[in-house]
């Protein structure tokens, strides 16, 4: 009998290990922080658990948080240590679970909640729920989280969230290199929960005072909103409410928030109302039609929040702390990304190559397709070969493979060039140049997994 017990325990032990490994491989992974459509939810959540820094401020909420607040700016300008612990379209019940988890793990001095989630009704869409839940480690909190978003005690739905392999096993037809390598990768997320956007879409006034039909927030939203307030009170965590500038948020919404928080002593910073006062310009601070900001708007908005936090709370300045030396590298990535975006907007190929040659992080790969390279302008040629690696050469040992480069090259008649950023390990520009130095770009989203 003893033998049977030992065998059974060993068998199930090995099974459990294999099961966990396979679960990790099959899990859907949202790990591209440069995507225009989906937030890097896996990076945000994993990065939060991986973060070993002392966090004084944690921002919770929806995309209004992770797209609009940059913890790197907050650190650089105020020395505040913070993290955007948020995923897309979070309902208040999701945000409540995130807040609970943030307080349990990090015990921050301040929780900053963007109240946009009050506008969402009922339970979250499954894909959005998954992006927030899947990477939270199994705990009582997680089980409560699942229970909050599943209607009733639906065992099937609950087990689907606990054993995510049930949902993702059919991904066997589409597993990529990332699925195998990501679980072993360092989960540090340089942007600390923030998803940066660099493009600009100008929009009209946000019409905060516009009168719209509004029936009030749902009881479910209000219930969890009050739960968050009570949780912060109970744990002696300061709570600050904010609303980022957003064309969908109107005065009536803010009035309703003020009504709810009247019995509580809570500060509500309504930047949807005061965006002009802090310097947000609708012409060049948004990346879509007035809902989420680009890096310029983010910088202004984050600074405004930083000013408030610094002057109202005793927050330590971590800028000279040894433990925060990683921040310098992370800031370098941030500035490199800004530079890369600017680079990708330039139309003068010589100017592009000059910048590339002066920045040690860039590599240049090119091929010559159906043209005579001698017919090209000599200065351009000199700039090209200064750093450029002709793809006929051996590029083994580089971060990028010849196969992936060849897949990405535009293949136009002329010289096709790829600019690769070794710091962020991604292709930042993909262009071709004719004999007359006319530049062509294909607008295509480069995924990390393409590399």
């Amino acid at each position, binding site marked *: 009998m003893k033998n049977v017990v030992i065998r059974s325990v060993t068998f199930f032990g090995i099974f459990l290990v294999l099961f966990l490994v396979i679960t990790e491989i099959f899990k859907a992974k949202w790990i591209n922080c440069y995507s225009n459509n989906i937030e890097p939810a896996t990076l945000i959540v994993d990065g939060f658990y991986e973060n070993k820094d002392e966090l004084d401020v944690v921002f919770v909420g929806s995309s209004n948080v992770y797209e609009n607040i940059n913890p790197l700016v907050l650190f650089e300008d105020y020395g505040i240590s913070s993290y955007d612990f948020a995923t897309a379209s979070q309902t208040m019940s999701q945000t409540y679970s995130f807040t609970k988890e943030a307080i349990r793990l990090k015990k921050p001095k301040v929780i900053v909640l963007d109240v946009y989630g009050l506008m969402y009704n009922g339970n979250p869409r499954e894909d959005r729920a998954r992006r927030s839940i899947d990477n939270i480690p199994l705990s009582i909190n997680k089980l409560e989280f699942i229970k909050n978003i599943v209607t009733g005690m639906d065992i099937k739905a609950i*087990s689907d969230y606990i054993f995510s*392999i*049930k949902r993702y096993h059919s991904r*066997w*037809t589409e597993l990529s290199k990332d699925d195998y390598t990501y679980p072993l990768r360092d989960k540090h997320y340089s942007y600390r929960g923030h998803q940066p956007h660099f493009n600009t879409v100008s929009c009209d006034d946000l019409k905060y005072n516009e009168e719209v039909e509004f029936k009030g927030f749902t009881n479910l939203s209000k219930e969890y909103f009050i739960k968050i307030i009570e949780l912060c009170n109970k744990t002696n965590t300061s709570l600050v409410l904010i609303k980022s500038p957003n064309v969908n948020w109107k005065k009536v919404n803010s009035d309703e928030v003020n009504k709810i928080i009247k019995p509580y002593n809570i500060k509500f910073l309504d930047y949807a109302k005061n965006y002009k006062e802090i310097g947000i310009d609708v012409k060049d601070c948004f990346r879509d039609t007035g809902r989420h900001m680009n890096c310029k708007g983010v910088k202004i908005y984050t600074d405004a929040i930083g000013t408030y936090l610094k002057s109202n709370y005793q927050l330590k300045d971590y800028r000279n702390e040894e433990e925060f030396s990683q921040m310098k590298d992370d800031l370098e990535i941030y500035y490199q990304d800004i530079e890369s975006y600017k680079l990708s907007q330039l139309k003068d190929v010589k100017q592009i190559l000059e910048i590339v040659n002066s920045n040690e992080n860039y590599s240049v790969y090119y091929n010559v397709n159906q043209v005579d390279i001698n017919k090209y302008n000599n200065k351009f040629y000199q700039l090209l070969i200064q750093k450029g690696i002709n793809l006929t050469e051996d590029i083994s040992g580089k971060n990028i493979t010849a196969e992936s480069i060849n897949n990405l090259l535009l293949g136009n008649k002329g010289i096709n060039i790829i600019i690769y950023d070794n710091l962020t390990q991604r292709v930042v520009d993909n262009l071709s140049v004719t004999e007359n130095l006319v530049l062509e770009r294909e607008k295509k989203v480069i995924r990390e997994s393409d590399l």
Partner: protein
Amino acid sequence: MLFNSMEFLIFFPIVVLIYFVIPHKIRYIWLLAASYFYYMCWNPKYAILMLLSTVITYLSGILISRANLVPNKLKAVKLKKLFVGFCFSSNLIILFFFKYFDFFISNINLVLRKFNFELLNPQFDIILPVGISFYTFQALSYTMDIYREELKPEKNFLKYALFVSFFPQLVAGPIERSKNLIHQISERHYFEYNRVKNGLLLMLWGFVKKLIIADRLAILVNQVYNNYHDYKGLVLILATIFFSFQIYCDFSSYSDIASGAAQVMGFKLMDNFKQPYFSKSVAEFWRRWHISLSTWFRDYLYIPLGGNRVSKLKGYFNIMVVFAVSGLWHGADWSFVMWGAMNGAYQIIGKELKFLFDKAATIFKVNRESKLHILLKIITTYLLICFSWIFFRADNFSMAIQVIKEMVMEFNPWILTDGTLYQLGLDEKNFRLAIIGIIILLVFDYFNAKQDIRERLGSCHIVFRWSVYYLTIFSIIIFGVYGLGYDASQFIYFQF
């Protein structure tokens, strides 16, 4: 609670654990409670019907056995027949009402319409209780065995109720014989490592067949058969071939899981499938396919009708009756009757043509033991059976005819290479996996016929053995068709 559901994965270990922990004396009560709970998970109201059938057959059994004690033999026989008649008719009336009433009314209306009479429109909302055909037949076999004095009646009502409701085989068979199962209920079953392991392995193989093969094939089959007007030629042939393996995997997987679950608890259920697609004749196929039902019809219908100990014509008539009724047992539609009749007809034609085959074999000096000859017979049998499956899968008789027409009207071999195959519900990878599944099934059947693979595996080194176990379990987890977005398809035989 389907076998391939989360609920069963929780239910079964709990039942087994408690079963082995509690004293032997009360184990049958625990299993009875578990079985009724299992059945009531579908609909608690169904349990009342099962209980009714149980009470009727239990009392009939006691009354029949008491009638044997009546000194006047003639009166005793009359009484016995009366009780059997009452038992059979009451059970079959319940079965008829729940399963065939709609079919009956629609046929009556068909006749009434011909003569321009007012149509019947009964205001019933009848839902077919899960597994009613299975437990009714199982209970009736008990009555018949008592009547034939092949079995003594079970006096303990709870033990008898467990015989009717034993959860592993309750809703989709095998239809157990009272002679085989009842005595096992009173036996003591100990926890034996090897028996439990073998039971679990059988269940595992059942899950492979159900989740990886049957449910994957079902995607293509449903796509094509539900839109049969859009498909022609080889596509319909392919869907029919896929269906032949789908229904085999589906039904045999259920039997394997049932037998495996019973084996874990120390019960031995009868074999229900023995490599049916390796049969060399249709008659042999029916000795290998759904054995518990075939033998039920043999023992309780074919033999009472006279079997083959009658004139040739009457014998053929008996075969046709048995197969037509068997068809009707599978479903309340003429297409099922046609399917059954076809299988009966195959056998009669086979018997009639036997002398021709014998003569041809002599003239052409055919070696009937040669592997090629055997292979040809297997293929021919498979094709005949496959053809009959069209009637089984089609929603009704006219659809089956239409499918056959569309199948032969167009010869379109290009669908094998132009990518059409991957637009029938399964993408390329899943289609390939389906084909691999069928090959594994056939190879497994082939070797299992020679020696029980579980035994063979048991003698291998532990590293190899455990690797096979893990590979199988994770294949089910990864390649199984289940989970959110997928409504775990019902086992095909549940509605019979």
